[in-house]
């Protein structure tokens, strides 16, 4: 995350390749399922043996003795509907929920988040020199309508996408954050309203950021978990 600050996001998980290197983020939506983005994976039937999800740690490179770190292998990848850019990753065993590991809520189907709702992104990705490289960072944003977003993005924002308000300083997701959550507070619960996808630039000031709108795919998410 460029800008932002160290924070706590117990549903944000780190995806690790066979060498144990962090390459993308994800969100825990069920004890055994993580949502991330298709761009982070080579194919919809990629062989993910040796790939792991790390949960429960705030550090990018936690020590092997970190008592709260959970390491769980990925057993399956399921690609989302066309245009969704989403993937669901099944974990080999359920994660243990505690104060460091929690499930994020899913929004109602095809729900539009009201403008000005406060949301946050989280990740262990690139900071572009804005500090705290080795810990989980979060950054706060507020939601804008797709119509407003399209003024800047010249009509390219689709209904399966959701935007956050442009900032006056450089702050936003960057390499290594992709697949992570855009979580918005509804009543007293955090809801996964968006998934971070690669965009042009990192935290560009004066530019609304675009995410995949999760509510469009909630029925698919539930169907995959149920089946």
């Amino acid at each position, binding site marked *: 995350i460029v800008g932002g600050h160290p924070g706590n996001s117990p549903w944000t998980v780190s995806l690790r390749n066979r060498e144990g290197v962090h390459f993308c983020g994800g969100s825990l939506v069920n004890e055994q399922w993580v949502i991330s983005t298709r761009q982070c994976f080579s194919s919809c*039937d990629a062989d993910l043996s040796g790939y792991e999800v790390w949960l429960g740690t705030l550090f990018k490179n936690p020590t092997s003795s970190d008592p709260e770190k959970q390491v769980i292998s990925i057993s399956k990848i399921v690609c989302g509907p066309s245009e969704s850019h989403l993937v669901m990753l099944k974990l080999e065993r359920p994660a243990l929920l505690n104060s460091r590991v929690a499930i994020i809520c899913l929004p109602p189907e095809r729900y539009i988040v009201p403008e000005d709702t406060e949301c946050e992104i989280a990740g262990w990705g690139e900071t572009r020199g804005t500090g705290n490289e080795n810990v989980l960072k979060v950054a706060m944003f507020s939601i804008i309508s797709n119509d407003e977003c399209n003024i800047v993005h010249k009509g390219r924002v689709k209904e399966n996408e959701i935007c956050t308000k442009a900032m006056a300083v450089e702050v936003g997701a960057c390499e290594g954050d992709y697949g992570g959550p855009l979580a918005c507070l509804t009543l007293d619960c955090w809801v996964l309203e968006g998934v971070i996808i690669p*965009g*042009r630039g990192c935290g560009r000031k004066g530019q609304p950021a675009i995410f995949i709108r999760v509510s469009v795919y909630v029925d698919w998410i539930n*169907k995959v978990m149920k089946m």
Partner: protein
Amino acid sequence: QRSPLNDYQRSKGVELVNSAHSTFLANEEFNIHVEECAKRCSELLDCRAFDYNWKTQGCQLLPWTQHSAHIHIQRNVLFDLYQKKDYVRDCFMGNGVSYRGTISKTEKGKTCQQWRLKSPHDHRHTPNPRNGLEENFCRNPDSDQQGPWCYTTDPAKRYEVCGIKRCEAAVCLSCNGEDYRGLVDHTESGRECQRWDLQTPHKHLFRPEKYPDKSLDDNYCRNPDSSERPWCYTTDPNINREYCHIHKCTDKKRLHHVEITHGCFKRKGEGYRGKVNVTTSGIPCQHWGAQTPHRHHFLPQKYQCKGLEENYCRNPDGSEAPWCFTTLPGMRVAFCFQIKRCTDDVEVEDCYNGYGELYNGYISKTRKGITCQKWSEQLPHKPHISPVTHPSAGLEENYCRNPDRDSHGPWCYTMDPKTQFDYCAIKPCAGDSKPFAIGDTGVIFDECGKRDNRVISKAR
């Protein structure tokens, strides 16, 4: 610190079965380590292989291999089969004195004479349990520099070499040898390789089960990390790893399993040869030929098949997608995720209205081209939705349907055992848009989205 297993080639999940008889060299013992089995087999002159049962931790020592008469390999998840390399390799190491394969023809195609016979050619080599002069198989009892040979059955030709290749030359090296699957098990300095499935004398990350596509078999030289050439950890505790000497192919300058693309990338993008030269976030890439701001070993001259031209995004190391070293000193590498993936969707032939719950067409393939499973079938997937549970949903044959009002359109269970269901190659008809819910939906969240927000007191 070599392991006795180094002399064996492992085949996972199989056992050897003798259809003629079932006598073993020794009674099966239990709770023995696999290395102890290898040691015992190596000490017996007539032991050529053993089946190791992981459940009982017992082994059966066998006087035959998969190439022996009346023997076949049978799948059995409980077993791993270990066979002495000298008996199963189709190439030879060193000068081939230890070769025990079953080739019995010379390089010119003449049939070999049985070693126990003295005609048509009389000779002084008498078979015994140690020298391996069995049947009429090619052998090298006199350490001939050209490798295994035999007396021929042609009275006019006393003996001839068999033309069996040295393992270093049997399989040549194309590009950087990531796809090398040959049988060289020594480094270029002559040190023996450590087995990939062992963690001694060197502890390492390349566990074979973590890299199933890299064929980290036994202790053979491999290139799982996009090094310059195949290499291995050595059995010398003081030397961690070394390159292996393997002949280079003369004509292969491209990776045969990689499809070249320009406007988009397929699979991991190893074949991407387009001209995108900035990272996802727009940072210019460092030229592959340059060593500043980042020093690296992916030099174009050393990785000739990887398209490391200019500063274009490439994937020379099997990463998730094309990437590059960036021109920012503080950011070493970054992916070029903005390059589009080539679509592997199949041609769309039909469209549906609404969610497609009334679609009754005849498309029966998913968007990836996989044939749909019949709704009434139980294999490869046991369906939750079937003509019995949804009798009025028109679940005929294997046609795409939408019995559960899935908002992403008609779908089906697929014939691919790894993909339970997928959406079909049908698009929504033009002009259809689906309603959204704005604002308060009255949904109450239960056991999710809660976290411990510790407030740090700012009071002194």
